[in-house]
């Protein structure tokens, strides 16, 4: 038997509440708000309390999808990245860097958001960066 409580941060919003995922034999079965976290002090909102439920949801996207002949198809990461890089280059050359925009997410870490804006500004040369919390 394998029972673990795994400390992690809520993915739902930017507050950064801490909780333990209750994991029994590899399956997340519960969410336990962390009492010693200075952010949420053992409390959570209704989304946080149910965060373990989406982990094993069948509808969750686990692989990149690419639209081919009008249909979304699962492809490898290599193919998805090659395609995206080629198209970004093409669009930038044809219509200029400001024809491209980047939407980041509250569900990822600060560091990941930092990387994306860096890529937008230094890689693509645009300041078109926005965030789902402002939409």
């Amino acid at each position, binding site marked *: *038997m394998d*029972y*673990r*409580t795994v*400390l992690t941060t809520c993915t739902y919003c930017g507050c950064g509440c*801490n909780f*333990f995922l*209750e994991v*029994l*034999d590899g399956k997340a*079965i*519960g*969410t*336990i*708000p*962390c*009492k*010693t*976290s200075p952010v949420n002090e*053992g*409390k*959570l*909102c*209704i989304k946080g*309390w149910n965060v373990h439920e989406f982990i094993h949801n069948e509808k969750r996207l686990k692989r990149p999808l690419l639209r081919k002949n009008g249909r979304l198809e699962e492809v490898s990461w290599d193919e998805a990245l090659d395609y995206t890089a080629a198209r970004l280059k093409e669009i930038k050359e044809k219509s200029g860097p400001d024809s491209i925009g980047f939407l980041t997410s509250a569900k990822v870490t600060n560091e990941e958001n930092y990387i994306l804006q860096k890529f937008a500004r230094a890689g693509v040369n645009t300041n078109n960066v926005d965030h789902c919390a402002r939409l």
Partner: protein
Amino acid sequence: MIDSIKDKVKELLDTGEIKGFLGLVRKNGHIGPHLFQKGDELVDLSLGDNKIAGDSRYPLNKYLMNIAKAYPEETFGVLIRGCDDRGLQALYTWNQLNPKKVVAVGITCPQELADACECLKPFPEDITAGECAKAGEQKSVAAVDALVLSERFSYWMDEFVKCIKCYGCSNVCPMCFCNECSLKCDDLVKSGELPPEIPVFHHTRAMHMVGRCVDCGLCEEACPSGIPLRTLYKKVGSIMEDKFDFKTGMIRGQRSPLNKIDSAEGKK
């Protein structure tokens, strides 16, 4: 105190009497629940006291139910305080845990915690370590009861209106184990409606805690809105004591009046 607990748990694990010990661990700078399966993990055992006594308690019996359901043949140890002991006793009578498969390792609570909790019995029946504190003075219910009816009503309505319907109070509660939760029954509490209808939401839960609440206070600690839930359930508990002479989990084997409708005693 912690060393005698470690020794006791180590012995239980080494002799194979228990498959694992559900306790608390200090890890990554935090205190959280942990299933100890090897003696050498016990260096990081915690009793749930971070800044002040008992401020990092978790509903361990609740997690024990999850584990026991998946491994009904195995025996597990669990760290308990007085309230957890009352919880275990009540859970046994509701057939949610098998007493033959649980080895409780009990600690007492210091006087400051007993006073803060207004606890009637701040120690478990069988104590592995610690000195017994005196019962805490009962003040919070009396303070609300002292208000005239209209003021008492507005006091509670002003508290309930703060509810964000996070369901934390029931999610954290070691005595909430129903397969179908009345707080999720559309006829009582409309799904998708925020804030929840008051006082129906809170009364529905209070009604369901009759004969179940062991006054651990974890619901109030989990409430993001600071609603004095413990006072509410203490009041519910005091009515059970007055009318039925029943205090949840205090007497071993005693079933709640609501848990014996099928028995001759219940029919009486």
